[in-house]
């Protein structure tokens, strides 16, 4: 491939074919492969992997015993594969992303027609190519283990699937944390965290495989009735985690005025569809009564994380977003909660909570009356959680408004939330410790401590709790109402402006490559 442009006609033909064929590939993938072939790390890793698998094969065939030997071969092979796909591949992707960010190479990329999404998918594809390569290097070993009756096909297949899922999620996570490098201050933390996290994960997996615990777990899973539920759940979670890493990395690479918010907000609304869809498709009806409340509550918790980001964004729409607000007024208003800006973000979260409550009210299993059944406990816990969410996010929004209107301000605000939480939880405890010699029981001073307060009240069957909780939610929302209106007004004003400007046809429609 090297001399695509300058070789004599003899070589030109094959170069031609490669060139035509590779037109369909992601340019990043093509480049990474070219670099890998020229680099040193990659051939070295392959050689080591090959050597290891030969050594294992030799050792295993030495102490031959039917069945046991096969199992050992499988464990050895899989234990070799794990560090490759769980550490080497993601770290490689991490490093290549870091290299791009250093010295502004990534800016050169972003100036081309490659969208951030294509850059990221190129990285993931390169990781997949490596995965396939490593698996094929180790496949003789895995095949041997099957032939020696050590393990069945299901176990091998499941293990490989597991390895693939882990590889994709870990790579997406690694690439995303590398893309964070746009903020240089976070870089050392990201470096360390990534290497450490991947290392721990790899180590844990290897020990599980070598000790046989992994096979045992797979076996138990296959035999149990919840096989499809668990596998589909794992797949869904991996998919979501990858999607989140993807969106995060993309938003770091996008032009500062592009819309980075809507994708996250749409994802938030996709979550219930996936969660309840999974519940209907994979969970046996007799377990649904327990699973539904837990899922609903889980969605509430997840929405908090999204919410923190949504309500700390910059306030106004960028000129670009502004210029692309739909001209039709009703469409603009309908889309408004999905458009960037923290006022609209808060509104979007509110709508999500309304949706969750509506679903909960419509489908909550009422049959179960046992005291500690999720369906009995979670309404109180959920309602209180929601109250705390709106109190804290209201405070957070108030603080955010006092920070500068730029990305730094948003980041600072996101750090403020845990700080605030810590302060409100720890300060009363300290006061207790000094004044009374130790915290013994809940009192009103701990009312801003969501954990203790919820634990204190949720267990008791106090129906009079609800009016208080509703009042708190209402009081927390009331001061935010003007902001909701403001957020909508900004959108409708932009829509009106775009409508009146509609004279010359905008050239932007075909903009999306």
């Amino acid at each position: 491939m090297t001399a695509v442009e300058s070789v004599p006609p003899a070589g030109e033909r094959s170069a031609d074919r490669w060139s035509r064929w590779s037109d369909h590939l992601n340019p990043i993938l093509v480049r990474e492969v070219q670099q890998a072939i020229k680099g040193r790390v990659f051939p070295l890793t392959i050689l080591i992997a090959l050597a290891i698998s030969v050594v294992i094969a030799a050792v295993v065939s030495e102490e031959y015993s039917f069945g046991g030997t096969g199992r050992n071969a499988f464990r050895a092979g899989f234990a070799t594969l794990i560090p490759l796909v769980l550490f080497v591949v993601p770290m490689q992707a991490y490093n290549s992303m870091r290299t791009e960010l250093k010295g502004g190479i990534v800016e050169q990329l972003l100036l081309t027609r490659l969208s951030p999404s294509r850059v990221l998918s190129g990285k993931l594809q390169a990781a997949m190519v490596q995965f396939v390569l490593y698996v094929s290097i180790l496949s003789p070993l895995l095949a041997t283990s099957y032939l020696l009756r050590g393990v069945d096909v299901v176990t091998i297949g499941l293990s490989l699937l597991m390895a693939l899922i882990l590889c994709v999620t870990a790579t997406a996570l690694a690439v995303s944390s590398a893309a964070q490098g746009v903020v240089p201050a976070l870089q050392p933390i990201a470096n360390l965290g990534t290497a450490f996290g991947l290392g721990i994960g790899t180590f844990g997996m290897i020990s599980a495989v070598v000790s046989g615990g992994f096979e045992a777990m797979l076996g138990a899973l296959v035999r149990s009735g919840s096989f499809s539920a668990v596998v589909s759940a794992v797949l869904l979670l991996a998919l979501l985690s990858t999607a989140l890493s993807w969106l995060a990395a993309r938003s770091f690479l996008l032009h500062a005025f592009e819309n980075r918010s809507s994708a996250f907000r749409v994802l938030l609304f996709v979550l219930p569809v996936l969660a309840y869809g999974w519940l209907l498709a994979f969970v046996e009806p007799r377990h649904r009564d327990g699973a539904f409340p837990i899922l609903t509550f889980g969605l509430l918790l997840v929405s908090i994380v999204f919410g923190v980001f949504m309500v700390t964004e910059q306030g106004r729409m960028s000129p670009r977003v502004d210029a692309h607000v739909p001209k039709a007024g009703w469409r603009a208003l309908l889309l408004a909660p999905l458009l960037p800006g923290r006022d609209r973000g808060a509104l979007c979260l509110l709508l999500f909570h309304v949706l969750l409550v509506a679903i909960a009210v419509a489908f909550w299993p009422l049959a179960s009356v046992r005291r500690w059944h999720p369906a009995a406990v979670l309404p109180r816990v959920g309602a209180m959680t929601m109250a705390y969410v709106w109190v804290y996010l209201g405070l957070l929004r108030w603080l955010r408004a006092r920070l500068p209107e730029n990305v730094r301000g948003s980041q600072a605000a996101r750090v403020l939330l845990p700080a605030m939480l810590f302060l409100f939880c720890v300060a009363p405890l300290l006061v207790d410790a000094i004044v009374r010699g130790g915290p013994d029981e809940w009192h009103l001073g701990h009312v801003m401590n969501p954990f203790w307060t919820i634990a204190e009240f949720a267990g008791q069957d106090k129906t009079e709790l609800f009016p208080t909780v509703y009042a708190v939610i209402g009081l927390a929302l009331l001061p935010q109402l003007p902001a909701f209106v403001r957020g909508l007004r900004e959108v409708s004003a932009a829509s009106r402006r775009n409508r009146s400007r509609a004279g010359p046809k905008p050239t932007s429609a075909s903009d999306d490559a």
Partner: protein
Amino acid sequence: METALLEVRNLDRRYGNVHAVRDLSFTMQRGQITGFVGPNGAGKTTTMRIAATLDVPDGGDVTVNGVSVLVEPRLARRQIGYMADQFHPYPGLDVVQYLDFFARASGLRGSERRRTVRKVAAFCGLDSFADRPATGLSKGMGQRLHLAKTLLHDPQLLILDEPAAGLDPRARIEFRALLKELAAAGKGILISSHILPELGEMCDSVVVIEKGRRVVAGSIADIHRDNELEQAVVVRTLGDVEALERFLVVQPHVSEAVVDGARVRFAFTGDDRELADLLVRAVAAGLPIVEFARAEADLEDIFLKTTRGRLQ
């Protein structure tokens, strides 16, 4: 009215307390080379990065062919070739692979891609370097590769941030020749420098900024006129220098005549017509003139004259 190729309008950018660009406006036409001049830290890179969609301003706008870089960054990017002040090629790729990658990234396919890569590499004189590693080039060749990469998608507007910094004189002259050829082919080029002689006489117009503010902008001739900058003229005679000087000091538009060896240097405030008349009179007066030339009126003069007194 035809839209300008590049229009910078009331641009403003702060970094914390540093006001990097303040209310900067200028325009640039097609086929022109515009020098963007200012001392280090004047805000050149900041302005160029905003124009190249890599940064966003706190106020103002930049349009390329009428397309706002803030509203349609992706559309604008296709018309812009931006050459940053630093060049970091990918490790592990040779020159052609490097260009091939960026050609792919620019959406070129198949034979068109290969033709473009070959054409651009030839234009930039990279032919004989095709299979050298991209990271191992000399500064001069590296800048050519950088320029080649910038040209792949055939942009209308080139934004070059100090491309000649660190080049040796020969490489600089060759680089300048490339740019002139590009301008002749109709591309607009905005080129920055903090060292004036680097730009030499290749610019059609200049924008001088200092501390983020525009000091002057316009074609070099306009600036001379607007600032009533007198031009220096040098005359050499075979005969008596004193006689020449005596002749000159009584002529219209002439001032500050200074004898310098066999030459007389004087300031002339008239236009070219009047300068020609002056020469005719000198010859008619029997003065043996062998040299009659404008002293190189360079950017440095403009710069020094226009920024004088504002440097603090």
